[in-house]
């Protein structure tokens, strides 16, 4: 499998080349186009994991695209304008903010984890995803706006609304940004993620919830 990310950064499109029999698992609704020899199969992977995914801010179902008889191509995209990145799986794996998942190699296990109850207030969802694998594989993640890779060596504080993915080698804790809760709330910085250890963190250069608030409030009211 080879993934090329084209039209970066804002209009990123993932061109996935599959060899005969190879497959990729993608988030529901991510398909843009494909060669007709690619078969799509929809599965929840069991009711419990489907439900867990729904709580994690993802869709209940995922689609598996498999190339039959010959090489296949699948085009995948994110719903919002923004960049995508291909992460090579590591022994430790990655944590993902739940809406960042777009696709992965079939061997990659995506598990929904509690992100700490404080995550509830962060707009980043109560849950995070953990991607792990026994064998080599790839993970396709997407963000809103550009993607910036940061290296944490010691400590780093990231706004939860800007988090996309991070190495599972890092310790993380969601907490307040300032000294007190009131100051944190008034600062507009809300909740942040405190990282400790050594690893990479991918951030999105725009915060989708802030964007939604800025634009959505200008729209006519819902009934």
């Amino acid at each position, binding site marked *: 499998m080879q993934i090329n990310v*084209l*039209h970066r950064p*804002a*209009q*990123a*499109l993932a061109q996935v080349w599959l060899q005969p029999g190879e497959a990729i698992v993608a988030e*529901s*609704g991510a*398909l*843009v*186009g*494909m*060669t*007709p*020899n*690619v*078969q*799509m*199969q*929809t599965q929840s992977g069991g009711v419990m994991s489907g439900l867990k995914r729904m709580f994690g801010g993802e*869709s*209940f*179902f995922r*689609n598996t695209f498999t190339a039959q008889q010959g090489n296949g191509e699948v*085009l995948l*995209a*994110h*719903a*919002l*304008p923004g960049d995508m990145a291909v992460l090579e799986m590591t022994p430790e794996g990655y944590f993902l903010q739940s809406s960042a998942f777009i696709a992965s190699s079939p061997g990659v296990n995506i598990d929904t984890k509690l992100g700490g109850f404080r995550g509830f207030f962060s707009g980043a969802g109560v849950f995070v995803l953990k991607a792990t694998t026994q064998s080599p594989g790839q993970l396709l993640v997407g963000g809103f706006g550009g993607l910036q890779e940061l290296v944490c060596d010691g400590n780093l504080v990231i706004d939860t609304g800007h988090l996309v993915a991070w190495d599972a080698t890092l310790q993380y804790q969601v907490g307040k940004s300032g000294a007190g809760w009131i100051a944190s709330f008034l600062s507009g910085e809300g909740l942040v993620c405190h990282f400790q250890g050594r690893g990479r963190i991918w951030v999105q250069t725009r915060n*989708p919830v802030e964007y*939604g*608030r800025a*634009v*959505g*409030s200008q*729209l*006519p*009211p*819902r*009934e």
Partner: protein
Amino acid sequence: MRYEVRQKPDYGLVRVMFDAPGEQLLVESSAMVARDTAVTMKTQMTGGLFDAAKRKLLGGESLFQNTFTATAPGQTLWVAPAPEGDVQELHCDGSTPVFLQSGAFLACAPSVQLDTKWGGAKGFFSGAGLFLLRAAGVGPLFFSCYGGIHPVDVGPAGYIVDTNHIVGWTGGLEYRVTKLGGLKSLFLSGEGLVCEFRGQGRVWVSTRNPSSLAAFLQPFRPVKPRS
């Protein structure tokens, strides 16, 4: 006439440099960004009222289009579409027409004829618009979409495109609207209907679709107070 598209793919902007007086470009209503003062503009319903109304009502284009005419060599005209996204330029060589999704047309030389085509009942279900714009002739054509434009060359094996991501395609391709997988997939996959293209030609797909953005923004709309 020479032309280039700048700031691809995020904010496509067309720059046209006229070589001779009398050269013209037909531009979608309100798409002009800038022009030399001496370039004249004439607003018209191309093809007369009936054709213009057909395009407006059926093809999703404006009732009026503007024709810009150069009065001296070296004059320039800048054109941009409304949505944030790409502009694709294409030099039509007359060998095959181009079909555009409604709303995708941006500009063309007057030597390219525009016509509204009935997309057939399949268009109705495809979300691809019931009507298509058919561009035929010789000359430059510019079209646009929300998101980036990605070209796909279709061979005998064909290609499948999500109906919400089709911008346009060249004649010589046959298409049919179909669903992927079984009934379960139709309702649960989130992929809806697709268009399967066959033959020899090119399909342009958009990397984003505006309905996803609208769906994202929906929960952020204010709630109407109960009276």
